[in-house]
């Protein structure tokens, strides 16, 4: 080949002596460099300035600190003080601790919210019509898909992390020292970091490079701010996943485990997910006994991971764990220490748009419900009084993905029936729900006659969902209907980001 035929061959500097086009070469040690030339900025305010955030833009947050989260309130206070208006707050979820946002909404700092759920005072105020523009509720998988497709564009992500190095490798725990704000997986934050135009990590533990293995890689991070504390450990690990001693929940859990055993989806090498809630988490306990008795192992457990799943992993009953969110300290520590406890992001977990989500590999999932209607539609978002008090989470994603979805609920809660003619808010459509387990009977979706057949063959009594509804109403009586105004306060998206239901303003709260 004649090299001279390459255009401008003679002008290539490297061929005519020393190449001088490269950037200035480092001379200091890596350690010196780490503390002088890095991405750490002195304050949240400075980080905000550097990101170029403007009025009307979208800021995002994760909810791995649950009810102990300091980040959302901290950042929104700064943004309010800096005079920002008309912002969209896109959090993976919001909870009781975020009540101070009410003021920012009233003052026009926040004019739109996207979240998986709302609780406490903020939820009540929004149900009363606090916001002109309705809140968009998405499932974890739906949010991931919206971010990927651009339907939800994040301008700046502010992501709290229990540890981070000066270049932005961030983790939900700390390998270098003990820390209290440990949250385990950063599954929801990972995706925000990847897709946001600018990404700010806020940490209370700045550790030496490299903070590996990392949850969020430095390649996704622009700025880092060190603060005293990112969250209250009591609220981060709220103890919501302690093993229940409530006899009714145990009864439901035992029945759910019996159903799984009889369903045909309990075999050596099966896969599972347990949703949050006493009865669904306790189901793992009863399954464990059955696994030991029958010599059966699970190939993997997915989801929000708890200590119970970790225990089963450590005794060899669950081979691999895919963890998008660690619910307790045992789970967080396992993520840190166990080789086959894998951190996954929200898209890998449940997006319908990517090239393969883990929920699609589930044999079964056990999910809680606030309300179920006679078409098997499930509500986990609004209470029986119509007020928002929950979160969609991965409910519709896992119900749709799993081959066999089990919804557990007490027949009545106090005087409120769980089985109703029509749920207040459809979160998970009935055609993805296969079995309903209550403390007073089991109903199988007529779409799954083969499941009903298997349960009957195992000697399990089965009712129609109508019978269960009647039974509940006979005990507590017929509730008066809730009165709504016309104003729409929430739009509920299915996992494919089409609208599945609307939440209206309640008349009296």
């Amino acid at each position, binding site marked *: 080949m004649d090299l001279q035929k390459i255009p401008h061959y003679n002008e290539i500097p490297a061929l005519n002596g020393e190449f001088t086009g490269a950037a200035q070469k480092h001379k200091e040690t890596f350690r010196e460099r780490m503390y002088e030339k890095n991405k750490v900025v002195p304050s949240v305010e400075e980080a905000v300035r550097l990101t170029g955030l403007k009025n009307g833009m979208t800021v995002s947050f994760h909810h791995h600190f649950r009810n102990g989260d300091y980040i959302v309130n901290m950042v929104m206070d700064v943004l309010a003080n800096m005079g920002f208006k008309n912002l969209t707050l896109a959090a993976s979820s919001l909870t009781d601790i975020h009540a101070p946002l009410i003021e920012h909404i009233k003052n026009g700092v926040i004019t739109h919210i996207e979240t998986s759920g709302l609780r406490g005072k903020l939820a009540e105020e929004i149900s009363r019509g606090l916001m002109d523009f309705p809140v968009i509720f998405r499932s974890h998988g739906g949010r991931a898909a919206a971010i990927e497709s651009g339907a939800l564009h994040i301008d700046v992500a502010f992501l709290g992390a229990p540890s981070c190095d000066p270049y932005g490798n961030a983790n939900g725990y700390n390998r270098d020292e003990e820390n209290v704000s440990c949250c385990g997986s950063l599954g929801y934050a990972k995706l925000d970091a990847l897709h946001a135009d600018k990404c700010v990590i806020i940490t209370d533990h700045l550790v030496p490079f490299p903070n590996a293995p990392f949850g969020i890689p430095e390649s996704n991070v622009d700025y880092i701010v060190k603060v005293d504390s990112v969250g209250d450990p009591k609220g981060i690990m709220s103890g919501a996943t302690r093993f229940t001693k409530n*006899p009714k929940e145990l009864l439901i859990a035992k029945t759910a485990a019996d159903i799984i055993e009889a369903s045909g989806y309990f075999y050596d090498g099966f896969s599972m997910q347990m949703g949050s809630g006493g009865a669904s988490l306790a189901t793992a306990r009863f399954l464990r006994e059955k696994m030991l008795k029958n010599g059966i192992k699970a190939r993997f457990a997915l989801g929000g991971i708890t200590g119970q799943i970790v225990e089963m992993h450590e005794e060899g009953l669950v081979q691999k764990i895919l963890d998008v969110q660690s619910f307790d300290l045992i789970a967080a520590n396992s993520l840190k220490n166990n080789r086959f406890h894998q951190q996954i992001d929200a898209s890998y977990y449940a997006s319908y748009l990517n090239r393969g989500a883990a929920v699609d590999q589930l044999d079964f999932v056990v999910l809680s419900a606030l309300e179920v209607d006679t078409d098997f539609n499930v509500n986990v978002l609004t209470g029986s009084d119509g007020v928002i008090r929950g979160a969609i989470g991965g409910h519709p994603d896992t119900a749709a993905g799993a081959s066999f979805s089990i919804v557990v609920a007490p027949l009545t809660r106090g005087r409120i029936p769980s089985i109703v003619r029509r749920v207040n808010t459809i979160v998970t459509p009935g055609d993805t729900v296969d079995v309903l387990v209550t403390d*007073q*009977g089991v109903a199988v979706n007529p779409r799954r006659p083969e499941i009903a057949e298997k349960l009957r063959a195992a*000697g*399990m009594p089965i009712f129609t969902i109508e019978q269960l509804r009647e039974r509940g109403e006979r005990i507590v009586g017929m509730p008066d209907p809730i009165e709504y105004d016309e104003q729409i306060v929430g739009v509920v998206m299915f996992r494919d980001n089409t609208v599945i239901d609307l939440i209206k303003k309640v008349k009296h709260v």
Partner: protein
Amino acid sequence: MLFVPGNNPGMVRDAHIYGSDSIMFDLEDSVSVNEKDAARFLVYNALMSLRYGKKELIVRINDLSSGLGVMDLEAIVRAKPNAIRLPKTETAQDIIDCEREIERIEREAGIEVGSTKMVAAIESALGVLNAYSIATASKRLVAVALGAEDYVTDLKTTRSDGTELFFARCMILNAARAAGIDAIDTVYSDVNNEEGFIAEATLIKKLGFDGKSVINPRQIPPLHEVFMPSEKDLEKAQAIVQALEEAKKRGSGVASLNGKMIDRPVALRAQHMIELAAAGSFVPVEEV
């Protein structure tokens, strides 16, 4: 038999969902002196309006000497539970006195006389020694039960591995069998000690007791497990029942299996065993 504190509306409401064979609403020890009237109203109103399916419903009243017992009967008998449990039974006379009150109320209320059954709880040394005369004191009696907490105090000892209750259990069981009624064992109060509970349940099953009182729904599944017949026994029982049905189809009053005639007690035991097995495997949910 599931004990339910009579002044707790949540537990009174849900008592039937846990798979126990019977429910005992308590107006006695679990209710403080100041709340006796409130508990009486609560249990009465629950029995009047709630549905408990096929569960056997029993109400433990206060003892008659306290003055509260008769007030309890005035309300409860009219709400028609299956049986009244009389605590602290020491002599046949206690049963006779209680029966007199029940019968009076049945007549006043227009309830069929004799329809309210009785369970006698024996909770003292004297009661244990009088077990047979107590068990035969009334046709209303369907069971005698041991109440161990008061009994061990009376004996000047405490609950331990069961040695201390051996005599009382044998006396009560023998009295019940001689009288042709059921014998029910006492409660095991350490709810968190499942191992200890299973050991005690295994012991009393070996002795021959028909059942055991439980204070927490969590104790029901292990109890059913202990009382669950073995697979071999169950197969035999099913064969017996089948033979009986075939005999009935043929119009014959006599059934036999493998050349041996099946007499009535054998048939009854087989039936009971099958019911036990059915009750044990899943929590039974009935139409209510």
